[in-house]
């Protein structure tokens, strides 16, 4: 009973915080309402007994939203005062489309003949996930690792405006890199 109440409370928080992202008048508030929505969903995943994933969602998303807030302020140059930031296009179509999608998904959720539970959960869900990842599902883990590495490289390529030629000279022979911002280990 208590679990049900908590679940519905968290559901209301998650959805309302999600709506707030596109309603509030401040970038900081928008990104931290998204973080709140993620925390609520992470706690719901905890209620669904997937402890590791639930805590991981909270960990990752709070970090991401802290970064998100910095980017938003960097690009939009805002201050904490509330100012209208209603910057939308095609809102005329977006609202009906999303309402339609909701009705479709909700109908599916409510009226589809969901199967009854097959099998029972492992005694230690986290340990089972670990064994699975390091055993039969090793390929998934290896692929995710490569994708992450590729993401880091392409992210830096896209975002950095200085190349190694700017740092080390046209023939790459400069002994110390000429950076506008010196680093801490004096390379």
């Amino acid at each position: 009973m208590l679990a049900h109440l908590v679940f519905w409370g968290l559901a209301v928080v998650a959805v309302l915080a999600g709506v707030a992202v596109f309603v509030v008048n401040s970038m900081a508030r928008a990104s931290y309402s998204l973080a709140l929505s993620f925390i609520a969903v992470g706690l719901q995943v905890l209620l669904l007994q997937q402890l590791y994933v639930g805590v991981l969602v909270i960990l990752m998303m709070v970090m991401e939203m802290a970064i998100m807030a910095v980017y938003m302020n960097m690009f939009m140059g805002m201050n904490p005062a509330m100012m209208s930031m209603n910057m939308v296009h095609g809102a005329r179509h977006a609202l009906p489309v999303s309402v339609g999608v909701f009705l479709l998904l909700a109908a599916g959720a409510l009226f589809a003949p969901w199967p009854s539970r097959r099998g029972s959960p492992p005694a230690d869900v986290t340990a089972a996930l670990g064994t699975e990842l390091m055993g039969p599902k090793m390929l998934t883990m290896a692929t995710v690792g490569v994708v992450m590495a590729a993401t880091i490289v392409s992210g830096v390529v896209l975002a950095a405006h200085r190349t190694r030629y700017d740092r080390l000279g046209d023939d790459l022979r400069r002994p110390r890199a000429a950076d506008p911002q010196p680093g801490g280990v004096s390379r």
Partner: protein
Amino acid sequence: MAETPVAVSGGWAPVAAGLLGTLVVAAALLDGALAGRAAGARSRMGRPVGEVARLLRQRRRTTVAADRLLWRVGGAGLLGMALMIVTVVPLGRWTLFDLAVGVVWVNALDVLAWAFVWLTGWGANSAYAMIGGYRFLAHGLAYELPLMFALVAPAVAASSLRVGEVAAAQQGLWFVVWMPVAFVVYCLGVVAIAVWGPFSPALGRDVAGGVTAELSGVDRLLFLAGRYALLAAGAAFAVPMFLGGGGGPLLPAWAWVLVKATVLLAGLVWLRRRVPALRPDMFMEVGWLVLLPAVLLQDLLVAVIVIGG
């Protein structure tokens, strides 16, 4: 093999909070005494008490167009974080919250410092406070990954993410002995989330107090108490992770936990005036090029020993 701790009912939570509060008061008094000695005065141990009384009576300063909600959330958040961390720290045979993924839980909570410190800097709508917030995030980018991998080492060695089992796995040898790098990086991380000592540029005098520039009255008290509480909670969590949990001669297990936590906390408080401030721009490279590889090597070493041994 020591028995793993049993979860006690939530009614004991005020006791845990009280213990944390005691550690906070002790740390503040010690810091006052150290500050007095540094200033040449005979003893200024009472100074924190006077400061609390002053802040409780002070009127709140207001700033133009402040984001009050986020400001208050950030200021009070640090204290909440510390309280949530101590819920998974076993006190000898008892623990409040015997979570199967306790180590990840603490990791998720320490990330909240990014949000709370930055929000405290942002909410005031003051340039200096905001610079402080950004300085903290820059530090965060450098310390967070090494801190995460430092927490990995004890969990790998104990083959468990349950804090009680990590403590129980140190019957023979404390983890701090054979994973010193992870321990040092962990302590650095604790000091960082408490915006303490070397990580205090976010509150620097050169930016008029940084994040705390516009904080006054009860808000300031909450923020400062939150910093001490994080330091205390971090020291308490180091006990089951690195310092053998409740293991020790003569005294009962719970007393050993408190003794170890107090000693480590005193060390961290003392560190404040002994280590120079780390500039965020300089520390970035140190974090990524020195700390991260070092702690990864530590993890590798631990994994090899666990598999081989």
